[in-house]
């Protein structure tokens, strides 16, 4: 580690803070969301500077990309409601008190950052010595799929529950129906043509990013986001309709990832004597066997989370 941060780092840090201030201070909600997307992209650069090449694409794809898209869509639909009613606006005293509180929190955290012990405690050596048992080359993937696989497993369930929560908001009369409005392909338009061109390429890129994750930066979350983005694009360009939420294949696709994860985890009791343990000889094979359906499930969940609750009834 260098002793002094580069000018680049200092500039980047100030840029991140500036965009964050913009996101909070902007009067117009749409402008604030645009600021947030920029914030996410700048954070991506920060992750690269922090030697976290696996986090950077996740931040770009999910933290900035999908989240940003979701918020942009929401701010457009909520247009006109975003000026607070007179009674809602906090008074000057509350604002001052809030500012004081938040300054204290930030200052305290900053002091703690400076107080953190030297040399820093780390699990990197342990992660390195054990990585051969997982057959993987990327330590972050080893953490996600082996050392702390239970987190990743429960996280896929978290995503699924969020989707169930979103679906639960559908009016009863359209339950089982299709999410979002139906987009129709404009036969003379450029969009369907471009989308037809981009979607297969994007799918390929998504699969590549997922596949490379076992040895190099990349992995199921980053790959799945790209797959999801392609699906959303195809829906918005009118190439395909969103699937009705009562479809059995859709439900199967959604739970396939966590289900296979659970199944192989339980098989670990028989194969290696513990839940989510892999016998060394088959570790990589088993991990990939889990990752493929998990990637597909996550991609489906992400795409459907963006699509929203059912709005059109089954005919």
């Amino acid at each position, binding site marked *: 580690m260098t002793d002094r941060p580069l000018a680049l780092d200092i500039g980047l840090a100030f840029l991140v803070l500036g965009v964050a201030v913009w996101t909070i201070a902007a009067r117009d909600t749409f402008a604030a969301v645009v600021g947030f997307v920029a914030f996410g992209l700048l954070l991506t650069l920060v992750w690269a500077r*922090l030697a976290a090449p696996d*986090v950077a694409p996740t931040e770009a794809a999910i933290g900035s990309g999908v989240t940003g898209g979701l*918020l942009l869509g929401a701010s457009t639909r909520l247009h006109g*409601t975003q000026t607070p009613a007179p009674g809602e606006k906090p008074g000057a005293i509350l604002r001052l008190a809030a500012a004081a509180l938040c300054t204290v929190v930030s200052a305290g955290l900053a002091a703690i*950052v400076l107080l953190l012990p030297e040399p820093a405690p780390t699990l990197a050596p342990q992660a390195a010595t054990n990585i051969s048992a997982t057959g993987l080359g990327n330590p972050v993937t080893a953490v996600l799929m082996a050392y702390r696989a239970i987190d990743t497993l429960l996280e896929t369930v978290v995503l699924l529950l969020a989707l169930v929560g979103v679906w639960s908001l559908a009016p009863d009369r359209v339950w089982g129906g299709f999410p979002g409005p139906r987009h129709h392909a404009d036969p003379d338009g450029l969009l369907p043509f471009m989308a037809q061109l981009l979607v297969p390429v994007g799918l390929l890129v998504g699969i590549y990013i997922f596949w490379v994750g076992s040895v190099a930066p990349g992995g199921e979350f980053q790959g799945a986001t790209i797959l999801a983005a392609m699906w959303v694009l195809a829906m918005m360009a009118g190439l395909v309709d969103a699937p009705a939420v009562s479809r059995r294949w859709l439900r199967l696709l959604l739970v396939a990832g966590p289900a296979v994860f659970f199944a192989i985890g339980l098989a670990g009791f028989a194969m290696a004597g513990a839940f989510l343990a892999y016998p060394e000889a088959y570790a990589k094979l088993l991990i990939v066997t889990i990752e493929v359906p998990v990637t597909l499930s996550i991609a489906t969940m992400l795409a459907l989370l963006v699509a929203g609750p059912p709005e059109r009834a089954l005919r």
Partner: protein
Amino acid sequence: MGEATLYGLCGAALVGLGLFGLIVHPQPLRKILAFNLIGGGVFLLFGAIARRGAAAGFGGDPVPQALVITGIVVAFSATALAVALLLRLFQETGQATLHLDG
């Protein structure tokens, strides 16, 4: 001061900024945005801690880095659920406010 400390301080400032937004903005969408800013700050802090733990030939401690990936995905699910609730509320009432009598 290394870049880890620098970005750690940056994360600390982001947490405060987001907290401020969460308190003073009455509109739910702005609150959701502010929550994401706090999240960004927390993850950045964790990333700085990971960078400090660079060892064994890794540029950073892989455990926190992996946890940040999990955290980003969880934060996204939270945002998606909150946005869906907000849009449904808007559909139902024509308003997007947390005021109970609104």
